[in-house]
């Protein structure tokens, strides 16, 4: 029963990880950019939502409707002002540029909002901790279920946009070969700006759920980035459905790790992440060969 509960809670937690990893994964898959400011941007969105809810007393869901278009514009600005220029300098420069952006954002947020820990939970009252009982001693949080469902809808929606719509096809084509698409009348710059806008909308949603589920402060971006990164990598960087699987694997690994030992929560997640990375890097057969080699050497 306890194990079942752990797996259930871990799966729901995985939905949250998939949600925060979504934008990271999308940006990597269609723009080949690793955005290290991902977590900080999500926290910035959370602050925007907080200001609307706290100062203007809007319902956080209404605030989200206002913040998401703003995030889309932020995405366009990010692409035009930072990513596009950085990418001209090679593959490493965007990583450094977004890392720098993360530091600037964190400290700017600190200047604006101070060190106080914030949360949107007070503005949604009971939803932040309400739950459904689904069996003897088994509870699922309403917010956790909502987060999971949002992750599924969002990832599915992105998949649909990419595979079924004109824009989606253009985005994919641009990511394959930005120079050639120009020949068939697609404006690569415009398409990349649209992709960045979509990615930032998902970051806004991630910030929303981060703020609902826990607390945040100006420096909360980095831990979010780590989990998002691990979920994206476990699921196979760039694959959208893979991100959902990656999030769930990470969440379940952490929950089971915590059940085995109280210190096992983070270790469980990191261990699975490393194992997947190892297998990915060398391929299943490669790993086997490597293990065999080590084994043979140690016998000698």
């Amino acid at each position, binding site marked *: 029963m306890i194990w079942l509960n752990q797996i259930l809670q*871990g799966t729901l937690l995985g939905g949250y990880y998939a949600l925060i990893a979504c934008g990271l994964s999308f940006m990597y898959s269609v723009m080949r950019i690793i955005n290290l400011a991902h977590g900080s941007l999500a926290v910035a969105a959370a602050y925007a939502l907080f200001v609307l809810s706290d100062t203007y007393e809007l319902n956080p869901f209404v605030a989200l409707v206002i913040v998401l278009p703003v995030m889309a514009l932020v995405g366009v600005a990010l692409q035009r002002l930072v990513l596009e220029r950085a990418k001209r300098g090679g593959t490493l420069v965007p990583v450094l540029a977004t890392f720098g952006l993360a530091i600037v954002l964190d400290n700017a947020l600190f200047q604006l909002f101070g060190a106080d*820990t914030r949360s949107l939970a007070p503005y949604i*009252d009971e939803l932040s*901790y309400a739950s459904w009982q689904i069996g003897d001693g088994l*509870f699922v949080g309403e917010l956790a279920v909502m987060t999971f469902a949002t992750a599924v809808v969002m990832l599915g929606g992105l998949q649909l946009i990419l595979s079924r719509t004109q824009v989606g096809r253009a985005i994919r084509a641009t990511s394959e070969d930005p120079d050639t698409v120009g020949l068939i009348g697609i404006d690569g710059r415009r398409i990349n700006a649209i992709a960045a806008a979509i990615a930032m909308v998902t970051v806004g949603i991630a910030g929303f759920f981060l703020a609902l589920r826990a607390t945040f402060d100006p420096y909360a971006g980095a831990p979010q980035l780590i989990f998002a990164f691990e979920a994206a990598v476990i699921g196979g960087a760039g694959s959208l459905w893979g991100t959902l699987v990656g999030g769930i694997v990470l969440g379940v690994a952490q929950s089971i790790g915590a059940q085995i030992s109280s210190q096992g929560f983070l270790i469980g997640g990191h261990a699975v992440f490393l194992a997947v990375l190892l297998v990915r890097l060398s391929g299943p057969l490669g790993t086997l060969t490597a293990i065999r080699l080590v084994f043979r050497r140690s016998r000698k």
Partner: protein
Amino acid sequence: MTETFHTLSSGDISRRSLILTAGAAGVTLIGSRRLLAADADVIKVGFISPRTGPLGSFGETDGYVLDLVRKALASGLAVAGKTYKVEILDRDTQSDPARASQLARTLINDDRVDLMLAVSTPETINPVSDACEAAGVPCLSTVMPWEAWYFGRGAKPGQPSPFKWSYHFGFGGGEFFKTYVSQWNLIETNKKVGVLYPNDADGNAIRANLAPALAKAGFTIIDPGPYEDGTTDYSAQISLFKKEKCEIFNTFPIPPDFAAFWRQAAQQGYTKMVKICQTAKTGLFPGGIESLGNLGVNISSAAYWHKAFPYKSPLTGVSGPELADGYEKASGKMWTQQLGASMSLFDAGFEALKASTNPRDKAEVAKAIATLKTTTMIGKVDFTSGPVPNVSPGPIIGTQWVKAKPGSKFKLDYVVTEHATDPNVPVEAKLIPFNG
């Protein structure tokens, strides 16, 4: 240098010697200016606290306290019939221990402070105390468990104190124990305590010292074991607390971890069982509790200062309510317990300077601190009768966050519920069960 002067006197001014001379003259000039400053009757006091970064909520109120202190010292400080000008050099560690250490060294070597004050958390105080101890500069600090300051920096129980220059006052594990026993016996419970102590310096110290003492005092401690800071899911711990029906819950986490735990505990139906939720390290300041929404109401905490403390600041003359109200008026934010603690550090520091025969003599100042016996904003500070040399233990008062009365400017009120460690502090309210 002698060589340079020699070349000069011989009348042969080469390019090299000119540069050397200019350099030497510059050095002499800087040296003489420093000497002049040292000669003047100015006392320099360093004040190091975390104003920004993850610990920023501790230092948030320091600006206001500094304003009051500077105003009180505007006309100087009279010591042994002589009036000195006072310069306070306040520095922000940005919550970084390495930076705290570097700031302390700069204040000591470049600014030549006569007294160092450090406040809030081991991350700030320990590196500053160590730097002062090494350089022979008197250092006074408060707001961290004194055991972690004294033993954490290499002192051994039963042996003479290894510290000559650093002194610390304020609460310790013993005070926490007294306060918890007093607070938890205020209402009827099954005396089963679910504890969530992390795998960090504070968590492990509490697990090793406080938990066994509480067990001896008649409480059953249910400990699922240490967890890592940054854990985002606590299903395993919550299941155990539910199974054991722990009606008291105690924790020493970093604030974001507690918020995640407490909401999940509510989801899983554990908070409905809890009668006392006692937090430390988190839940000290209004911001953190407010961000929990309804789940933050009725959480118990412990305060190293409260506006109900009956003491006045000898340095600035303000009382508890005056300090709290003044801050609320100046900032628009609710008062915090840090106001009184930072004020008490200035109180004690300047009382020591006044008691010394010569505030510019570091050994005299250290001697004055070692024999200091005075009353500050937080109450008695007495280095002559501490449990170990260099330490003066202070109170930690049981408190509770309750819904503010209608018409209040703020959402919550912070009330005193017990006073085992300082009976002079009036008890303001009865402890309410968490689900009361």
